[in-house]
């Protein structure tokens, strides 16, 4: 990657963070922690990696995204808005009556959302189905699957992982958002799945651990060609990344507050944006 490309992705990631916070601010509360932790990933996917056409969101041979941790909707919505799938102002309708942007991703409602998620675990199997369907129909495209590290406590996740590896579904890329936290606190205190990477390797994946906030490293991992093993990326990330107050809040799964709280977060992000542009 050139320096310019890296900078462009970093700027895009910041815009996604700003859009995410603005989206949640419009409602006054929302799943901010797990949305911010995937902002860099989404910037790399939609900024460089994925073959998509915002003017034709249903194009059959597009690359697809399944955000199985469906509560990260606000980050995905911000990304799609910035890519032009729908007007930016739509972000301010999050969870309002009649909205197209519900808490959890919904393929029937939102242009650019490829799969409905929200019941944790289920997105993994549907991503397998998408990738398998593309393979059966001879399409040259990939599906990217984002799974929460807490979500990986669901047995269905491992059923889908087993299938992915056993059927050598190399057009499906697994990404575990390893931000170490779930709703009730730290994964290690709730019900620890242990070494994610070793588990994926044992199933037969080509598994790597990557810094989830380093766009260059993410790009490298996401563009690596899968030979005979599917790729699993264990994304080492921080829940709430990019907004100090969120990162430092223990219970940052879903946060609620007045407009001043959100404005404070936005000020920090805009400061970073200005510094980057300077």
């Amino acid at each position, binding site marked *: 990657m050139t320096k310019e490309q890296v900078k462009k992705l970093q700027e895009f990631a910041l815009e996604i963070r700003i859009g995410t916070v603005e989206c949640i601010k419009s409602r006054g509360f929302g799943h901010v922690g797990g949305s911010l932790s995937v902002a860099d990933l989404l910037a790399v996917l939609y900024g460089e990696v994925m073959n998509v056409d915002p003017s034709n969101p249903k194009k059959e041979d597009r690359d697809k995204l399944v955000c199985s941790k469906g509560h990260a909707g606000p980050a995905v919505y911000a990304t799609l808005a910035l890519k032009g799938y729908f007007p930016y102002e739509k972000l301010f309708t999050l*969870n309002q009556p*009649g909205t197209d942007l519900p808490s959890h991703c919904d393929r029937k409602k939102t242009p650019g959302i490829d799969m409905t998620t929200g019941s944790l675990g289920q997105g993994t199997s549907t991503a397998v189905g998408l990738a398998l369907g593309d393979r059966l129909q001879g399409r040259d495209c990939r599906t990217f699957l984002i799974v929460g590290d807490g979500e990986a406590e*669901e047995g269905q996740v491992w059923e889908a992982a087993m299938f992915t590896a056993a059927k050598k579904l190399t057009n499906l890329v697994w990404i575990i958002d390893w931000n170490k936290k779930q709703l009730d606190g730290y994964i290690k205190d709730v019900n620890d799945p242990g070494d994610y990477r070793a588990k994926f390797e044992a199933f037969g994946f080509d598994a790597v651990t990557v810094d989830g906030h380093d766009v260059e490293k993410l790009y490298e991992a996401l563009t690596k060609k899968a030979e005979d093993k599917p790729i699993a990326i264990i994304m080492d990330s921080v829940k709430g990344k990019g907004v100090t107050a969120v990162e430092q809040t223990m219970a940052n799964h879903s946060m609620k507050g007045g407009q001043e709280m959100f404005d404070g977060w936005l000020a920090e992000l805009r400061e970073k944006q200005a510094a980057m542009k300077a």
Partner: protein
Amino acid sequence: MEIVYNGNQDSRLYKAVIGETIDALMKEDEKVVWLDADLRGCSGTAGKEGDRYINCGIAEANMIGIAAGLSASGMKPYAHSFGPFASRRAYDQAFLAAGYAGNAVTIIGTDPGITAAFNGGTHMPFEDMALYRAMPEATVYDITDVPMLIDTLKKAKDMPGVKYIRVPRAGSFQIYADGSSFTPGKGVVLREGTDALIVASGIMVKEALEAAKALAQEGIECAVIDPITVKPLDVDLVREWAQKTGVVVTAENHNRIGGLTSAVEDALIGMPLKFGHVAVEDTWGEVGPLDYLRERFDLTCDHIARVVRELRA
């Protein structure tokens, strides 16, 4: 039964009541064990310490299976998740490992129906009562207020079989006096009347009382029954009041298929009655504020009154 409803919101949150009641039960009975699926923060048990508080993580099917095994070993398990995951997600485990195998498990599904509000359609169970009603020997509660919740949690401890308790997390309106005691299968007549019968459960009980109040001003006197348990349903009581009134309307925060409406219809088959319902019309859930969803799905006192009026016209 002393009815204290006065239209004021109860200051106690259901989830705090769950946390306090379970903690008290644990102290009183060393067999009590609480299982949660990464939602202790939503069940009011967060911060309560002890090795009988078990966080199973986001793995509801496993949790219900564990609860069944705990019961077989002599423990008294309570297991909690949001309504959809405490029902659909773990149904086969609840059905076979708990119900069929004869294990006693109390399953608490929070935020039923439209009370899932901002979590949206994926989290909004309109079918949980239908699932548990279809399970032989299960007991199904649609919680009406805090006194009923406390009594239900206490009694469930030593009851056999699967007990499914659907209850919102947030606030409620108090209907029954503190310390009230309920019997599964025994409904409560909240109000007497000879012109129509409204059978309502859960959040719809308050709406039914408001509808009855409004209708009384028009000279229509409604009886209102809270069945307490949707299964077993107090068939005798419902038939008795249906007979007296000739017009029956059900009100539930659930799909009209499989829940209270179905149960009451089943109980009244063959009786010469006019029958109506206020329920979700076999459709999916949707995201939004609770007040919006009430209107969106027509789960209001105004709608109950309208249905009663139409049937009597």
